[in-house]
């Protein structure tokens, strides 16, 4: 047993030494040390700025009754963990404003940074997902086939050493050499963050960061094992390399994008602007119908008061008039609300369906899986978009109940002339201080709950690949 252990240790030491003196280790080290702390720091700066902006605007008075086209607005808070995984943080609208019945997102005042969007962004997620996976392949492609080509595999196996130990030593050696620079850079980056003021130890953040690190490690391990596996499939390192590059392109570059595109094609969702247009046309047509129904009532009133309709003001002192008006207008307004709710619910449902499909397809590749997982944990994933939209609609409903439903807007037209009547319905008080929009991030249990399955998937994949590599290596022709 001890001899066996010593053999393993010998193999392990040789593996590690081999790697440490190679160019690829230097490249790995350089990339880790440069990219990880830098990306963490810069993303933190961006987060700080947005945070400051956000706080400033929340405090400012313009939330209530802004000088826009009249209406109420709200802001989306930044997520502290976006420092590790940007996700949709910068591309999702940061604010909205309500001009009943429309909700306008992004209000056009803050588009994403075009350079950011055109050239892509660097965050910790990207470094792990794209850069380290490629390097893992680079470390693994000639693990078996290379030794065969050199002839050293024969030499090693002329000794009483079981095959699985060789593979184990290769796996452990490679992992140690891959993970060490990665973890060290991460530590350096986190330290810089803490000194710059990042609330690393606040609340649940530390636990989440630890989880992110763990996931990254599993992911890198998965790619390394995959590389080992492919290395056992061929006798020429060059072939293994080309195959792995192809696999990398497909898994890291191809599938994630494909999943989104496929979901958009299979479950299309109309753009917001199109839905807004649909709502506008609907509102106009219902308004017109309502106007026609109310025409007689208003004209009668005008004649009674011997005024031209244009000079008519709403007579809140006449409860009979009010009652009649509400009676006629009621069903139209109810229908409008219903239709609106239906359109919005429909849109939301479609979005969710598209998202689910995209996520399912994305499970084919560990790279996209990792993206979803990390952005889930960082509260910057696609699910945040849905959550944000839900919160906004909820807010709108509350406002509708408290404010919008207590005022009226009637548009009457007669041939070429038109009159608009609007104001508060009598006897209905609107609160002086309308409720503020509040958005809360999902609770940890909630956000982790849905990702447990995916995390399991990632782990299972890695284990399965290792098993496959073992089997393949057992049957490997070492001559």
């Amino acid at each position, binding site marked *: 047993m001890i001899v066996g252990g010593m053999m393993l240790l010998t193999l392990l030491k040789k593996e590690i030494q081999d790697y440490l003196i190679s160019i690829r280790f230097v490249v790995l080290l350089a990339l880790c040390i440069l990219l990880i702390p830098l990306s963490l720091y810069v993303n933190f700066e961006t987060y700080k700025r947005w945070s400051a902006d956000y706080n400033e605007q929340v405090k400012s008075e313009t939330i209530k009754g802004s000088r826009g086209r009249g209406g109420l607005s709200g802001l989306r808070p930044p997520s502290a963990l976006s420092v590790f995984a940007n996700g949709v943080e910068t591309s999702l609208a940061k604010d909205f404003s309500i001009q009943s019945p429309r909700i306008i997102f992004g209000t056009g005042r803050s588009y994403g940074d075009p*350079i950011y969007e055109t050239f*892509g962004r660097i965050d910790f997620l990207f470094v792990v997902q794209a850069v380290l996976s490629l390097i893992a392949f680079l470390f693994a492609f000639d693990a078996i086939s290379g030794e065969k080509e050199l002839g050293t595999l024969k030499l090693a196996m002329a000794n009483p050493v079981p095959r699985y130990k060789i593979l184990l030593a290769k796996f452990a050696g490679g992992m140690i050499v891959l993970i060490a620079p990665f973890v060290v850079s991460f530590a350096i980056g986190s330290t810089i963050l803490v000194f710059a003021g990042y609330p690393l130890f606040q609340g649940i953040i530390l636990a989440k960061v630890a989880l992110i690190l763990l996931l990254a490690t599993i992911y890198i391990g998965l790619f390394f094992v995959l590389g080992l596996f492919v290395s056992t499939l061929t006798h020429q390192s060059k072939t293994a390399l080309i195959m792995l590059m192809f696999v990398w392109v497909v898994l890291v570059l191809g599938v994630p994008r494909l999943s989104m595109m496929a979901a958009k094609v299979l479950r299309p969702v*109309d753009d917001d602007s*199109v839905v807004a247009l649909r709502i506008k046309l609907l509102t106009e047509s219902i308004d017109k119908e309502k106007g026609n129904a109310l025409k007689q009532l208003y004209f009668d009133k005008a004649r009674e008061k011997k005024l031209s309709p244009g000079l008519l003001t709403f007579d809140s002192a006449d409860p009979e008039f009010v009652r009649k008006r509400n009676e006629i207008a009621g069903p139209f307004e109810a229908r409008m609300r219903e239709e609106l709710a239906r359109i919005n619910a429909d849109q939301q449902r479609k979005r969710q369906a598209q998202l689910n499909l995209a996520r399912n397809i994305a499970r084919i590749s560990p790279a996209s899986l990792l993206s979803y997982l990390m952005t889930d944990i960082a509260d910057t994933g696609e699910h945040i978009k849905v959550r944000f939209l839900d919160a906004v609609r909820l807010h709108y409903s509350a406002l509708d109940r408290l404010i919008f439903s207590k005022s009226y807007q009637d548009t009457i037209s007669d041939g070429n002339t038109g009159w608009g009547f609007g104001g508060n319905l009598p006897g209905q008080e609107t609160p002086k201080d309308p409720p503020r929009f509040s958005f809360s991030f999902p609770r940890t249990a909630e956000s982790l709950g849905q990702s447990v399955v995916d995390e399991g998937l990632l782990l299972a994949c890695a284990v399965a690949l290792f098993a496959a590599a073992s089997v393949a290596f057992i049957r490997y022709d070492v001559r």
Partner: protein
Amino acid sequence: MVWTIAQKEIRENLLSLRFVLLFLLAVVFIPSSLYTNYRAYLSRQADQQQIEQSNRDYLRKLKLSQIFTNPKFSLDVYWPPAPTSVFAAGFEEIHPRHLVVGKNSVEYGAPLDVQSSSGLFGSIDYLFVVQFIFSLFAVLLSFDAITREKEHGTLRSILSNPVGRAVLATGKLLGGYITFAIPLLIAFLVGILILEISGLNIFSGDFLPRTAWILALSFLYIAVFFLMGLLVSSLVSSTYSALVLSLAFWLTAVLVLPRAASLAAQLWQPVKSRQVTWLEKVSVESSTEMEKGRLLEEAYRKNSVVDKEGRRVADEGWQKKRDEIAAPYEERAAQSIRRLENDYRTRKAAQLALGLRLARFSPAGAFVSFITEMADTGIREENWFTAEAERYREMLQRELFSKIQFDVFPTGGVSMGIRGMVNPAQLPEFRLPRSLVRDSLRGADIAILLVWFLVAAALTYVALARYDVR
């Protein structure tokens, strides 16, 4: 002699696994992505037309009363998607394609969707395939061009003949170039053919010239990477070292550098967010309104009489007095807002320019910059659209805004009116001129790629001349 070597290279490559895989990826992804993006373009175009039609209807039915009773009256202008966007999809959403032209400034309209860009991942389009896949495979084809012959011994066989090193380098370059030109050309032509069949008239407008430029730059871009691989191969003696260095180069040039640029630009010149600028504009406007209103109210009291029914009516001198008082305030407001606007725009443009300059330093960055511009979805196009909208605003200022009068009194009264002739049906229409190929052509990007190419070529020739062939 050069052709002999090139021919051998082509034959060797054609039989290799990497070529087969590259061919597969190209022929599958390019035509299918072109087609998919074309469908998306059609749908977006239809949506856009619907929105514009609704806008036109609105303008047609517009009444004078609606104009002057609305202090924030504005017109919407749109920037329709271009068919060449099939080459570089997903970039339209990041630029405002809808601007709101108001009295004092041009603001962004509501974005197309609650989320710009394709979210977590980019999209698959021609740009993606060439930028990542072709460049990677170009490097994979060339990284061992020299080292494998050396390790194999065939390098000595070749050089025992009257073959100069420069001839060898040229032969290798030509052979490699033709090797990846084949899948690119085939996939490209198939894609264009599919587009034509699907209804896109490739001969209309400037689609073909733009496409030609895109193809040409693609060849240059791929050549740069092939050369870099060849260079690395000429610098080291083991295939393994060549591999690691080439891949490291590819990683850095294609994945890391362009992104790092935007990071750096953000740190360097942070700009006040547009939101904050907008808030400042709003506050300037409202405070000037208030002051103006206060003074006007006093003046009104002095320049009006009460009529029989107890209502206040302005007297003759009122209009002149009103103009006297209001003019400086309106002027001041307009100027402050323009200044805030220009301030923001200049600083934003500077940040953008810096980011672009840094990103374009890498061949991938220059390539992306060139293609997005040529495909009519570029960053600079936004400036051009905004500039046109500004011009429109100035036209409207003369024809419309300067004739509208809107005063708010502190006591709650509002006075509005039109001075002069305004016919809503005859308001000038916004016409977005076609952006010319000439304007979309970014010579700097071409130059950057050429410099990379030439420097790499020169270094390769030098390295190969001193290469130890034993």
